């Protein structure tokens, strides 16, 4: 009984963390955009604009939810749910510290990737059921992008699994827990020496940005050509759920990058490991993602697919082979 209640509490806290992040990352992005563009971001509602996300949420909920005339009602309403729920559910498996984890799942890595690919179904539901040519085109682009970028991401995660020997996220971090040179991004000490890890990190980083439809890969929401892409016909909370799902996915991608490559909750000098180091690294990666969004223009669809099929997949396959070879030799 107590066990069930603790599990339930842990899951609720994980979901609340996801929702809180999704809401306040929007504010962080707008302020980050303002800083790069030499203007303040939102700073009127509350100090530093901290009340902006709740007020935005209230505004979104108060708007009218319009379902277009020819739309397929069931698919239209279920699409945002299908995008948001897998993202939130993946948080159950992610560890933020050695004791701060909702459920220590042995195949945590596989579970997170499985849920990530379910989000694509929500995208195609949204595009198809909106009864709008623009959103259909955008959804098709988005699906081909998602499929193409899952492959290098999983291949890179496989190199981590090879090096760590396990798919348990907790154990992966535990093996990197000394100082900086034990981290997987630049493993000079530790069990294996592998100089290809920075490339793995780069490939994983690019793939996680492309998976979450994030600029410069945001063809699904390209404002210039296809005004708002696959969520054109969504207003009010439908749009709000898509938005929150996107930011939750970003947090998942950044968390995975921290866990796999940057040593999770360990300090670079090996001093006071804990959840604060995790959060510092997590938000450094998220800040870089925001920085990249506001710097570069968008790629074209064939540029995107070329990058994935012709550059990233061969690179990650070679990476996997060489990692396996290095592990055999050393």
């Amino acid at each position, binding site marked *: 009984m107590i066990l069930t209640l603790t599990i339930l509490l842990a899951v609720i806290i994980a979901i609340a963390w996801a929702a809180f992040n999704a809401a306040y990352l929007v504010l962080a992005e707008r302020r980050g955009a303002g*800083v*790069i*563009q030499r*203007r*303040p971001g939102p700073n009127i509602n509350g100090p530093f604009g901290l009340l902006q996300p709740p007020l935005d949420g209230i505004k979104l909920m108060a708007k009218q939810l319009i379902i277009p005339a020819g739309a397929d009602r069931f698919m239209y309403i279920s699409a945002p749910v299908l995008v948001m729920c897998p993202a939130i559910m993946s948080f159950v498996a992610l560890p933020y510290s050695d004791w701060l984890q909702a459920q220590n799942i042995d195949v945590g890595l596989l579970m997170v990737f499985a849920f990530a690919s379910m989000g694509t179904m929500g995208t195609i539901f949204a595009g198809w059921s909106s009864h709008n040519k623009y959103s259909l085109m955008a959804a098709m682009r988005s699906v081909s992008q998602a499929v193409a970028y899952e492959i290098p991401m999983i291949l890179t995660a496989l190199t981590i699994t090879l090096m760590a020997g396990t798919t348990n996220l907790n154990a992966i971090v535990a093996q990197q827990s000394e100082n900086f040179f034990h981290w997987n991004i630049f493993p000079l000490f530790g069990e294996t020496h592998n100089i290809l890890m920075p490339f793995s990190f780069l490939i994983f980083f690019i793939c996680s940005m492309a998976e979450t439809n994030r600029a410069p890969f945001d063809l699904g929401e390209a404002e210039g050509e296809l005004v708002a892409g696959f969520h054109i016909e969504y207003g009010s909370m439908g749009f709000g759920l898509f938005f929150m799902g996107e930011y939750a996915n970003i947090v998942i991608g950044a968390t995975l990058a921290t866990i796999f490559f940057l040593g999770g909750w360990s300090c670079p000098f090996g001093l006071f490991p804990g959840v604060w180091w995790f959060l510092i690294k997590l938000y450094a990666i998220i800040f870089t993602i925001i*920085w*990249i969004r506001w*710097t570069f223009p968008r790629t074209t669809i064939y540029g995107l697919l070329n990058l994935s099929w012709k550059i990233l997949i061969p690179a990650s396959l070679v990476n996997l082979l060489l990692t396996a070879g290095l592990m055999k030799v050393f």
Partner: protein
Amino acid sequence: MINYFREIFSGLWSLFVGMKVTFIEAFSPKVTVHYPYETLKMCDAYRGHIELIENEEGEPNCVCCMSCVRACPSGCISLTGEKPEGGKKKVLTSYHLDFTRCSLCSACVEACNFNAIEHSKEYNLASRNKEDFHFDLLARLRERNQ
């Protein structure tokens, strides 16, 4: 084959150069003015809607020559004047500006030879009905004088 790798590396390097530019810009001072908490002062030459100029006795300089009415491309100005008994010059009795048609081109101010109208510096007029922008400039002059 070499080109393939060269393109990848030079492309990646150009991305880092671009990111450095935005990073440096992020630490530059903000350039926006936090309107309406801070406002800017309009320069001398700024062209707002016209106002009548008065002489030392508080009467408008206008002699009702109708140059401004003829010069206006949009037909915004309408004025009437009458000669008082025993006086030589016409006196202005009403001066009406239809600001909803005015394009702030300054033709009226340049056409006036008697220094009777000038541009004001108002720039943030907003209202919900059109009648607020049918200015009675003579009444506004009298209000300013009080």
